[in-house]
């Protein structure tokens, strides 16, 4: 008997898991493409209707919701943070993995410790006061800067670089007379690109979804997309089609990234887990 061949129970379980995972998203589509009367009907409708386009246009044109601005802001914030975090982490990961310097292990332990502290919730009061004194509240800078600190990124890139760039390669380049930065550019970067992709996708998704800090430091006038949905939800609480069209719009970029990079996301998660 083979332990790795699926039983009927396994097949049913996988089927249920797939259906449950997809259902709320399907439901979002159903309500977003219907009318408000349908959305509160009992029994509820189970198939998508034909109003998706109209509802999306309504959300985008809604002056109060500032939805388009929210989407744009989220895109800016997520992209800037992603690019910066990937560069910072790749540089530090290279130093930790391939270079020797005094205090290296101590600093690496410090990185690990920062990963274990929920800084976002812990430090929220001083961070907010800092943003107030810099007069940055309500601006995207206030959302971007705290998130450039990403211990997980440094940890991931250190692990990845260790495995992808053998020390001999770095030493050979060194003997060749290459300076450290040149080694990083010519030897390390090409080798760690898959790790950078995993970190980048991860960071982008986390930023896109971030909620608590933007809710504190931004205003509904200059929202990220999550704040825009929250405003919609608060102001039009019974207008389900409007809110659902908004939520559907907000996850389209994520679903697109997911479909494009699904293999890397699954692979990256699994690799990261085993190494951690």
């Amino acid at each position, binding site marked *: 008997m083979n332990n790795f061949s699926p039983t009927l129970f396994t097949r049913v379980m996988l089927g249920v898991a797939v259906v449950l995972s997809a259902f709320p998203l399907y439901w979002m589509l159903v309500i977003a493409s219907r009318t408000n009367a349908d959305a509160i009907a009992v029994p509820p409708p189970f198939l998508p209707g034909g109003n998706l386009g109209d509802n999306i246009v309504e959300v985008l044109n809604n002056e109060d919701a500032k939805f388009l601005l929210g989407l744009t802001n989220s895109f800016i914030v997520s992209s800037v943070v992603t690019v910066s975090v990937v560069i*910072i982490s790749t540089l530090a990961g290279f130093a930790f993995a391939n270079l020797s310097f005094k205090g290296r292990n101590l*600093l690496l332990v410090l990185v690990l410790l920062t990963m274990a*502290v929920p800084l976002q*919730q812990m*430090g*929220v009061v001083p961070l*907010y006061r800092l943003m107030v004194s810099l007069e940055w509240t309500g601006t995207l800078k206030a959302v971007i800067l705290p998130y450039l600190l990403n211990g997980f990124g440094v940890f991931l890139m250190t692990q990845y670089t260790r495995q992808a760039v053998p020390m001999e390669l770095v030493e050979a380049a060194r003997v060749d007379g290459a300076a450290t930065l040149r080694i990083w550019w010519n030897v390390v970067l090409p080798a760690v690109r898959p790790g950078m992709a995993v970190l980048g996708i991860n960071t982008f998704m986390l930023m896109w979804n971030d*909620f608590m800090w933007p809710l504190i430091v931004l205003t509904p006038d200059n929202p990220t997309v999550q704040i825009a949905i929250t405003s919609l939800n608060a102001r039009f609480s019974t207008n389900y089609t409007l809110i659902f069209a908004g939520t559907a719009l907000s996850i389209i970029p994520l679903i697109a990234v997911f479909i494009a990079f699904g293999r890397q996301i699954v692979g990256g998660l699994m690799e990261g887990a085993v190494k951690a």
Partner: protein
Amino acid sequence: MSLDTLPRAARNNHRRARPPGRRWRSRLDVKAMPYALVSPYFLLFAAFGLFPLVFTLYYSLYDYDLAGTVEWAGLDNYTALLGDEDFWNAVVNTVAMFLIATVPQMLLALLLANALNKRFRLRLPIRMSVLLPLVTSVVAVAVVFTQLYARDWGLVNWVLSWFGVDKTNWRAERIPAWIAIATMVDWRWTGYNAIIFLAGMQTIPRDLYEAAAIDGASRRRQFWQITLPMLRPTMIFVVLNSTIGGLTLFSEPTTFYGGNVDGGSQGQFQTVAMFIVKQGFREFDYGYAAAAAWLLFLLILIGAAINFLVVQRIGGRK
């Protein structure tokens, strides 16, 4: 990098021929560059990690009020918090929702990981679809679930009515609200944790199972005697992650109440993170919020320690 590195390397042994300035520069490069490379991270850490942490302590020792006056308070904020019913209410809510969400989630994730570890077709699409919830934004999901849990027209009450269950007002009552929020958390994280468990399972050598099968161990026995004990390191990772995430829960309960941090009309599902935001940024009592943040950190440490001890015991011996 190929074979031609060797002769060039030999040539570079005659470094003495180089101008001294260049040698000095290359030594500086080797000695100082590593620090330069890690410095962006540590500068950010100083500004956005260490500074907030230290100053949270500082703020927690002062009393702020709406008028903007600041007074030294010593440990008053902490003693006030420990006697504050609203704070304890938030602690109870947070811990209860964490338990209601995490216990079933871990069991389901283990079962799902075990199922995902079998050989079947469509492996990648199935793995991707259990991760789908993770990439969906929390707020969007909470909005959808809130509609599904609506009292009069929600799908959940409609389905329950087939079994003769009366309409539940999920948001108004305490335990139903906890359950509703726990399902949102579980929907999001069960698949992710299953994938992490799966990664751990795949590092278990197959010979162990083959040997056990030859010895006549049933599949169930193999799961309990081999899979679970071998998964312990992965489990510690997953449980610590869930502890930090669960005890700082914010987005789901906030969205469940329309983006308001009160957590229901009676605060029946206000979490500690929501309590902090309410005190700090709705009532501008910064000192009180900062003190609550430290107590939240303490709560996380206690939670992590308990979970660590529990996981250590899983799978028997050692």
